């Protein structure tokens, strides 16, 4: 599991409500570029899709391409927002069990040309790019609160230290 990577630095951000999630996603989306991979982990209901939605909508807003709908990608596995630059691939591997067939989804293209947000990245095992930013969401002590744990892997171990995401 990436979370056990000794090179990973852990950074913890408390999210008191949905606005905090949106604000975090807004700060992060401006600092990512083509080829970046963000692995989103956490239990069902922990806020992975909510974060991805906030990220995609924030990027759309910044680029003047409003994106009204970011539906859950659970059903279609992959949703591509190619109106954004670079295109954002919102991937949800929840329904996927056989990692050997993940290549059918064409994710290599995403890893090269886009920003990839992957929910349930553990389904990819060793086909997840080594260089990635991992975000793990945990439910907080009270309703609506969450904690986001950032860790950097590969080149992201270093990049994480220069990321401006603090409140």
């Amino acid at each position, binding site marked *: 599991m990436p979370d056990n990577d000794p090179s990973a630095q852990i950074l913890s951000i408390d999210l008191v409500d949905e606005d905090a999630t949106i604000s975090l996603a807004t700060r992060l989306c401006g600092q990512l570029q083509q080829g970046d991979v963000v692995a989103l982990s956490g*239990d*069902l*209901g*922990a*806020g992975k*899709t*909510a974060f991805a*939605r906030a990220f995609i909508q924030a990027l759309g807003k910044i680029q003047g391409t409003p994106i009204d*709908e970011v*539906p*859950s990608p*659970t*059903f*279609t*596995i*992959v*949703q*591509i927002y*190619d109106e954004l630059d670079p295109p954002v691939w919102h991937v949800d591997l*929840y*329904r*996927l*069990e*056989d990692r050997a*067939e*993940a290549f*059918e989804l064409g994710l290599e293209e995403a890893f090269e040309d886009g920003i990839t947000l992957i929910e349930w990245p553990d389904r990819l095992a060793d086909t997840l790019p080594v260089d990635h930013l991992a975000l793990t969401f945990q*439910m907080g002590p009270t*309703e609506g609160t969450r904690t986001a744990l950032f860790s950097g892997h590969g080149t992201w171990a270093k990049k994480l230290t220069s990321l401006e995401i603090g409140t």
Partner: protein
Amino acid sequence: MTQIVLGIESSCDETAAAVVDSERNILSNVVLSQIEEHAPYGGVVPEIAARAHIDHLDRLIAEAMAEARVDFDDLDAVAATAGPGLIGGVMIGLVTAKAICTARDKPLIGLNHLEAHALTARLTNDVAFPYLLLLVSGGHCQLVSVTGVNQYKRLGTTLDDAVGEAFDKAAKMMGLGYPGGPLVEIAARKGDASRFKLPRPMKGRDNCDFSFSGLKTAVRRALDSIGDQANDQDHADLCASFQAAVGDVLADRTKRAMGLFEEQHPGARRLVIAGGVAANKAIGERLSTITDRSGFDLIVPPPGLCTDNAAMVAWAGLERLKLGLTSDMTISARARWPLDSLAGATDKPFTGAKA
């Protein structure tokens, strides 16, 4: 003259072929249920589904044709789902349809999966336009004003999870298995819906949209509050509470849409429910309380035609064929494809739609 269309459905987890004629006869309707194959995983495994589409589609089409006692030359067109859905599956069905059309010189009709659901009630119940549609399935949750073939106006949609997805995920969290909808419904029968105070997301809002993500989180919190010792009764109570919350939300949103619909179409008091979740009796009963009160007719196609099937694709193909709305051979499969973007779009190749 009676027209005959072969329909092919492969947009998600079901592979299906059917032959339907313009007199509303379902000459054959073959559905390869993959649920048994998926059950051990606690969810649908799309890769297995993609392979299953390839493995089974030819045989299913041959079966559908044989059962209908028609030859490819007897067909007036071939209709296939072109999206939205899991792109690998959609491509397999669409390419197969193109191959048949090319070989036998037949018109192709590439369909929006949601349109096929939307028109099913006209096949089964001969419902007249216009009507209000509540489409509730594993991948969708929308309210649509249907005023004609190719005339769809979406009044509301889910902002996050589809309603069937919410059922599946709630079932998974409780360890009930797959498919979640029927299992939650069965468990809920023995449960106390008042035990858990779950939210009614979007209720009372000034639009017709849905949101189920928060409900999923609330189920998680309820489970956490019970702890590791949750027994069958706890799960039954949570299922009942969850189903009641979903029913309330669907009723509230639909009621609002009924008001808007009636303003635009006075006297057209028809509500059609389609999609797999329409098979849930408790949800159906909850919705009938609002239609009864407002004098709306509630039309629900039989369960086998609410879940994904190819008869609905063949029928929607017939409806389009009648109006000359056939597709170009360059039509490509699409993962995202909002229903109300249909008007005028199907005669042209889908440019800029990579997936």
